[in-house]
C-alpha cells in the first residue's frame, strides 16, 4: 500500500496525493444508501499525462481506480464508492481549465473539474448558454453531468441521447490515451484547429464512436480528461408559460404537440411539490406554494433573440394556442402564482442549494426512461407506494422520442429511525418499476443487479466484451454495472 502511495506521490507530487484516513473516509460514503470501502489513497492529477501514468501503474501493480470530479463531498447514487479493497480515488477536481469558448461554433472545451457555477457566467459574457439539467448544483462538474447522460431541459436541442457531449480526450483502462470523434485527427488538436476544426462532431473516428461507450459507464471504461460540450445562443427575450391541471394526461397531450412541432425551448412537467422545491428555499414556503398549485404543472419557455425576438415568440405563441384549441385543452389554468423570473432562474442558473434537498434536507431519487403512453401508469405505481413527501419530474428527451421520469423521496436525514423504512421503500418502488418494464438506463449501485437480471443476456455479454477491450484488467471502478466478475 505504501508503495502505491509513494508511486502516486512520484507522479502527482506530495501535495496532490493523500492517505489521510479522515480524508479517505469521506470517499467511502455518499448521499445514497450504499456503503463503500475506505480507499487506500486519493490523488488529484493535473493533466492527462499523470492519469496515463496512474492507470498504467494500476495495471502493472494491481489496484483499482475510481475517477471522481467533484470538489465537494456531496456525491450521489453510490457509483464512486469503492466496492473493492485496494482502491485509489482519482479526483479530477483540480483539472479546472476552460480550455476554449468558441462562440462561432457554439462549443466549449472543458476539463472535468469545471463546474456549472464557474462556466455559466463565463458563457453568458459571450452570449452563450449550456444545455442544462434541471437547476444543477453550482459545484457539479459540467463534464460529469454530460458523461452521466443527465437529462437536459430543452428536448428540441436534444438531437441525440448523448447530447450535449461531443468529442472527448480519454485515458482508457489500459492506460492508453485516445481522442474520440473528429478530435481523433488527423493531426493534433492545434493542427486541426489551425485548419478550422472545432471538435464538434462526436461521431467516429470512422466506423465506431467510443464516446458512446464511455458515456454511461460510471467511470468503468475510461477517464475523460477534457470534452467539448455543445452550446446554444443566449436568448434575449423569454416568455414562460405555466399550465396547471389535476390531470397529468392533459399536460402530456399539450406537451406532445410542442414536441411534435419542435416549439418552445425548455419544457418540463413537475408535480406541485417538486415545482415548489425548485423555486423556493425554505420548507414552509415550499409547502405553502405547493398547496396553492394544481397537482401537475407544465412549464415551457418561448425564446427569441435579436431584433425579431418578439416576433418569433408571438408567432409561436399563437400557433401553439391554435393547436391547444384543436386539442380542446384550452381550458387549462394558465394563471401562475410563480414569478416568471423565479422559474427562469431555476431553468437557467445553477444553485448552491440543491433543490431536491430543500424540503426535508435529503432525498433519494428513482429515475428511468419510458414512452409517452406509460408515464401515467408508472406515476400511479409510485404514488400507491409512496403517499407522502414524494416529488415527481417528467422530462421529454431526444426530440420527444422518450421520457425521463424521476421520483424523489424526500426525508429528514436527522431522523435516523425513519431511514430503514425509506431505504426499504426506495428498493421496493425500484423493484416494482423494473418489474413493470421501466427502463433504468443509468443503473446505479443498488439497481444494477436487478436491472441486468431483467435485461437480455446478449446485452450483458456484449458489454463485458467492450469492458474487456478497453479495461482488460478491470481496474476502473470494478463492481459497477454488470462488471462484477
Amino acid at each position, binding site marked *: 500500500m505504501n508503495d502505491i502511495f509513494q508511486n502516486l506521490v512520484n507522479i502527482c507530487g506530495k501535495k496532490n496525493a493523500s492517505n489521510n484516513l479522515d480524508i479517505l473516509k469521506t470517499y467511502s460514503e455518499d448521499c445514497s444508501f450504499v456503503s463503500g470501502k475506505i480507499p487506500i489513497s486519493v490523488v488529484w492529477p493535473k493533466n492527462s499525462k499523470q492519469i496515463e501514468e496512474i492507470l498504467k501503474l494500476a495495471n502493472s501493480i494491481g489496484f483499482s481506480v475510481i475517477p471522481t470530479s467533484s470538489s465537494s463531498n456531496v456525491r450521489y447514487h453510490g457509483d464512486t464508492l469503492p466496492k473493492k479493497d485496494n482502491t485509489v480515488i482519482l479526483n479530477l477536481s483540480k483539472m479546472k481549465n476552460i480550455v476554449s469558448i468558441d462562440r462561432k461554433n457554439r462549443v466549449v472545451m472543458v476539463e472535468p473539474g469545471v463546474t456549472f457555477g464557474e462556466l455559466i457566467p463565463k458563457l453568458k459574457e459571450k452570449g452563450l448558454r449550456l444545455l442544462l439539467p434541471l437547476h444543477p448544483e453550482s459545484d457539479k462538474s459540467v463534464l460529469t453531468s454530460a458523461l452521466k447522460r443527465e437529462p437536459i431541459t430543452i428536448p428540441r436541442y436534444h438531437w*441525440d441521447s448523448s447530447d450535449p457531449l461531443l468529442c472527448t480526450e480519454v485515458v482508457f483502462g489500459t492506460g492508453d490515451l485516445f481522442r474520440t470523434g473528429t478530435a481523433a485527427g488527423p493531426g493534433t488538436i492545434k493542427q486541426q484547429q489551425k485548419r478550422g476544426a472545432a471538435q464538434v462532431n462526436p461521431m467516429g473516428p470512422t466506423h465506431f464512436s467510443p464516446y458512446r461507450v464511455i458515456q454511461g459507464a460510471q467511470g468503468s471504461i475510461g477517464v475523460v480528461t477534457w470534452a467539448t460540450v455543445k452550446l446554444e445562443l443566449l436568448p434575449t427575450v423569454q416568455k414562460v408559460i405555466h399550465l396547471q391541471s389535476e390531470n397529468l394526461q392533459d399536460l402530456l397531450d399539450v406537451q406532445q404537440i410542442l414536441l411534435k412541432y419542435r416549439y418552445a425551448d425548455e419544457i418540463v412537467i413537475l408535480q406541485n411539490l417538486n415545482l415548489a422545491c425548485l423555486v423556493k428555499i425554505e420548507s414552509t414556503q415550499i409547502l405553502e406554494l405547493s398547496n396553492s398549485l394544481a397537482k401537475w404543472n407544465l412549464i415551457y419557455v418561448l425564446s427569441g433573440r435579436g431584433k*425579431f425576438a418578439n416576433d418569433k415568440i408571438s408567432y409561436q405563441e399563437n400557433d401553439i394556442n391554435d393547436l391547444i384549441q384543436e386539442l380542446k385543452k384550452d381550458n387549462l389554468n394558465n394563471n401562475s402564482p410563480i414569478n416568471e423570473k423565479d422559474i427562469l432562474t431555476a431553468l437557467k442558473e445553477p444553485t448552491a442549494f440543491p433543490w431536491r434537498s430543500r424540503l426535508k434536507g435529503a432525498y433519494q431519487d428513482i429515475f428511468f426512461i419510458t414512452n409517452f403512453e406509460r408515464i401515467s401508469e408508472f406515476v400511479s405505481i409510485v404514488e400507491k407506494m409512496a403517499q407522502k413527501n414524494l416529488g415527481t419530474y417528467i422530462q421529454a428527451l431526444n426530440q420527444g422520442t422518450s421520457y425521463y421520469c424521476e421520483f424523489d423521496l424526500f426525508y429528514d436525514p436527522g431522523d435516523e429511525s425513519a431511514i430503514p423504512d425509506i431505504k426499504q421503500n426506495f428498493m421496493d418502488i425500484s423493484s416494482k418499476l423494473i418489474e413493470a418494464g421501466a427502463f433504468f438506463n443509468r443503473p446505479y449501485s443498488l439497481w444494477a443487479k436487478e436491472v441486468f437480471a431483467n435485461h437480455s443476456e446478449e446485452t450483458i455479454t456484449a458489454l463485458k466484451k467492450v469492458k474487456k477491450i478497453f479495461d482488460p484488467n478491470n481496474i476502473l471502478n470494478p463492481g459497477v454495472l454488470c462488471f462484477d466478475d
Partner: protein
Amino acid sequence: MLDKDILKEFQDVVGPEFIDDGDVMTNIYAYNWCTEFVNYMEGKEPIPFSSVPKAVILPSTTEEVQKIVQLCNKYKIKFKAQSTGLGPWNQPSTDNSIILDLRRMNKIVKIDEKNLYAVVESYVSGAQLQAEAMKYGLTVHMPGAGPMASPLASHTSMAGPGFTSPQTGHSARNVLGVEWVLPDGNILRLGSLGQKNNPDWFIGDGPGPSLRGIMRGWVGAKSGIGVFTKVGIKLFPYPTDTKFVMTGHAPLYNFEKPDYIRAYVFDCKSWKGLEKIMLRVEEEEVGFIVSHISGLAVMAIFSYSIEGLMDKMALGVLKNPLLVVMGARTKREFDYKQMVMEDILTEYDLENIVDTKYVPEKVFYAECLRANLGYHGFIATGGFQSAKGQADAAALCLRAEKTNIPLKQKYIKKEAIANDFGEGAWMTSYEGGHFFHMESPTMFNQSDLKSVKGMANYMDESNKQDLIKHLGAPFFIEGDKLHDEWGPHMMNYHNWLRKIKAAFDPNGVADSGFYITAKKEGENK
C-alpha cells in the same frame, strides 16, 4: 456455387425458391455502381464487378437471418448483407461469400405518432416511410443517396448526411432501438428493446454504456459487424403542409407547390462571407435545407436533362452559392421566417436569384421535400462519386473544399473527370448548424477506362491531401489498407477497431471489405 450439402442447409432455412447459387444470379449480384473505380483503387481490374458470391439468399425474418449467419460460422463462409443495395459497399470482397439480399424484409413495423419514431425493416425505402409518416404530419431523415435508399441501411450501416440535415440531423444520431444479428449469430437488441419486461424501441442506449458506440461511427460498418434487421428511427415535423399533389411524367412532373415553401439561392461572394452567412442562417433556424453547392451544382439541381443543364450556364457564374429552402406549417411561421431571411439578405447585400433571375420548375420543391436533389449529380456524365466527406466546423469544410479545387483541376486538365471548374461541392449543416459536412461530387465516365482510372487516382490523391493537411477523415476510409494508412495518424484507432471486430466476429465471417478485419490475411498465415 455452394457445396450441395451446404446449399441444402441454407435451403432448409429460407426454402429452395429463396436461394440461388447459379452462375447467372450470382454474376448479376456481382455488379454495382462505382465498383470499377473502387476495384482499381484496390489494385484490381477496373471492372464494374466485385468478387462473385457463392450464392444469393433472401431471408424474410430475423430468425432466418440468424440461422444463415450461424451456418456461415459453421462453414466459415463470409456473408455480405444488402438492403436497397446502392453502391460498391454492398459487394462482397471475396468469392468465399454469400449475399444476404434483405428485400423480403420490407415492412414498416410501426409508426409511433406519439413518441415520434418509426420502426422499419431493412428494405423499406425512405420514400415509402415518408409517405406513411406524412399522414401524421411527420417526415424522416433521408441521406443524400435519396428517397429510394433504405433508412435502415443509412441509420445503421452507411454514412448519413442528407439535404434536410439542418432539421433532421444525421442518420447515426437518429437511431433508437435496434435489432441486430451479430456476426456470431446471437441477436442483440439495443437499449429499451433489450428489456425482458415490456421491451420497446424508444431508446437505443443503455443500460449503462451505449452499444451504439460499437455498432457504427461517423460511417457504418457496411455489414462488417453483423446484420441489422429492424431499427427505430426518429421522425421529424414535415416542413410544410403534407398535401402532396403530383401529376404528369418523369422527370418533369407537375407538382402543386405547398402554400408555405420558398427557396433562396444567392452568391455569398467570398469564402469568408459564405461561412459567416451559412452560420447566421443556421443560428436563425429558418431553413430545412441549408446547403452550399457550387455554381455548376446550382445549374444541376434545376436541370432535368443534359440540354437543360447547358441552358443554365448563367447560373454557373455564382462564386460561393448558398441554397436555403424554408417551409412553414402556418402563415405566421412563414411570414416570420421570410422576414428573417429578408433581413439577412439586406444585411449582407445578397440577391436571391430564385423567382427573380430564375424560376424553378415546381417539381424542384417536391425534390426538396423528398430529399431527392442528389440524383441531379448523374445528369452530366451518368456517373459520379464523392470524394471527401469530412464533418466538423464550417471553416474546416470550406478549407477542405478550397484546397481540393487545384487538385480536381489537375484531373480535369487530364480529361479524366468532367469539368466542373474544380469547384463541385456539397456542404450541409446538421442540427441547426452545430456541425457541417462537405463532399466533393465528381462526375466521370464509368465506361471509359481513362476516366475510371483518373477518378480512382483523384480519390486517392484527395485522401492523401486530407491526411497530410489535417483536413479531417473522409467518409470512405474503409478496408484494411486505408485503416492501416490512417490509423497511426488518428490515435491508432484501427487497433481498437480491430479488437472490436475480433471480439464480436471471432470467425471473421462478416465481410469486412469496407470495414476492418481483426487480422490481415497475411498475418493469419
